């Protein structure tokens, strides 16, 4: 009851939104689609949820073809779009009831599945959805996407613009849903969330850059990578970018991640160079690559 995508392409006028995309999501997997705005994530979600036809290629969701079996798919999937799409003028409870009724079920029948999430907004069940805070809207949208007990759940950027605390709670909810047997495809622009998925696809400009487990993706990083720090961050970045042997220079929190174009790189040489640029308190230390390093290397 997973997802299978074969050679899907989709264009809008002269924009190639998706170019020959193929991958599988295994049954009960928590699969992440990681990429920035404009990468094609939403287009792929719309094709898989039968809201858009692909130009080329085929896909199945929970065993059903996205073109031929669209009615079956709609019964079997839950979809939480990136933009809040519930009825703002209905209350929390009315929205949930509405979606349950559409799918021929009731809140009571599947309450078990949404209980964890819904109890957090139940005190506000008579409030109109439009008057909820961002975090509460998100929980209501997830409850509505789950009320018919879908086999596959699609979540399009559920954590965009959400603070780190609420993001963490949201991912904990996803893990619990996965334990209940639901296959989950979730997209996010936050690279650090990739580590929370079983497997991820990195996507940019309509193309898949890589598909693997987060651990494997990080291991595939082709070069030793160094944390560099000095007394003046801006001067450090400029100096590293001017260094003739640099392969990549990216600020990473309190450090700059530096890779060298040579195979026999000696950190002492770099230190010496930085000293000639009047930098002090220089630290250079080898570190491990992150998903974001890999993404940038592949997108270069």
């Amino acid at each position, binding site marked *: 009851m997973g997802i299978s995508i074969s050679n899907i392409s989709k264009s809008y006028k002269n924009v190639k939104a998706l170019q020959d995309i193929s991958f599988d999501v295994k049954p009960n997997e928590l699969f992440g689609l990681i*990429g*920035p*705005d*404009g*990468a094609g994530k939403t287009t792929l979600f719309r094709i898989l949820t039968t809201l858009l036809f692909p130009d080329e290629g085929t896909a199945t969701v929970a065993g059903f073809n996205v073109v031929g079996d669209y009615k079956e798919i709609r019964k079997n999937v839950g979809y939480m779009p990136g933009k809040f799409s519930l009825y703002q003028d209905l209350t929390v409870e009315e929205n949930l009831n509405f979606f349950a009724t559409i799918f021929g079920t009731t809140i009571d029948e599947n309450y078990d599945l949404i209980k964890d999430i819904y109890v957090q907004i139940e005190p506000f069940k008579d409030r109109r959805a439009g008057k909820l*805070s*961002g*975090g509460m809207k998100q929980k209501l949208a997830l409850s509505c996407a789950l009320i018919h007990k879908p086999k596959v759940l699609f979540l399009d*950027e559920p954590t*965009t*613009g*959400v*603070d*780190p*605390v*609420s*993001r*963490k709670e949201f991912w904990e909810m996803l893990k619990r849903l996965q334990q209940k047997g639901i296959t989950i495809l979730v997209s996010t*622009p*936050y*690279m*650090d969330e990739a580590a929370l998925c079983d497997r991820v696809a990195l996507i*940019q400009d309509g193309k898949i850059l890589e598909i693997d487990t987060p651990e494997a993706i990080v291991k595939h990083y082709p070069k030793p990578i160094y944390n560099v720090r000095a007394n003046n*961050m*801006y001067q450090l*970045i400029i100096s590293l970018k001017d260094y003739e042997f640099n392969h990549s220079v*990216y*600020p*990473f*929190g*309190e450090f700059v991640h530096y890779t060298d174009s040579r195979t026999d790189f000696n950190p002492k040489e770099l230190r010496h160079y930085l000293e000639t640029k009047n930098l002090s308190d220089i630290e250079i230390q080898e570190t491990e690559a992150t998903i*974001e390093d890999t*993404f*940038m290397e592949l*997108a*270069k």
Partner: protein
Amino acid sequence: MNNVIQVEGLTKMFGDFTAVNAITFEVEKGEIFGFLGANGAGKTTAIKMLIGISNPTSGKATVAGFDVLTNPEDIKKNIGYMSQKFALYDDLTVKENITFFGGIYGLSRKKIKEKSEALIKELGLENVASQLVGSLPLGWKQKLSFSVSLIHDPKIVFLDEPTGGVDPITRRQFWEMIYKAANQGTTVFVTTHYMDEAEYCDRVSIMVNGKIEALDTPKKLKEQFQAESMNDVFLKLARG
């Protein structure tokens, strides 16, 4: 006095709800100041008071030397502002947007022309200068928007989640632009949900339920909360 922002006991109430609860802090010239907090903590309400579009219930604040209550119009002339929600006009071209905002801030035609050419060249937008902004990738738009917010050489620029959804390479180019502006003496007041970006700031404040619960350099905050990263600091604080 080198403080570009000076805030003392600033408070905003909506009915009996206290959105911003007696916050006090200052920001120095040329500083990159990170203004963090969970959704709903009161950041946006606080920023609205600082940029002169919402009156405080009590307390005092001066921005660029002007009082937020008595001189909000002077503040607006002396600050730049960009957010992800409001940035540029999609239906105007790159050049038209620059001209429009230059005009709003009262720059002369000659000055606008100079600024426009310099800015387009610096961002490498020569080939798309006559295209509608709506047709540009998000990352380009955000970089252009930041440059436009600096067009009148403001003392301070307020950036409200400027990098949300932007790809990782562009996000870093954006921060290099921030460093450059700060290096030239512009004060940068920025909100973000990317905790690695919090590390790029000179100092960071964290708001919880309307109050500033922590304020220091990222290094000192990590020591204070015995945390490995700013993300840990944030989780410890905002979760209580």
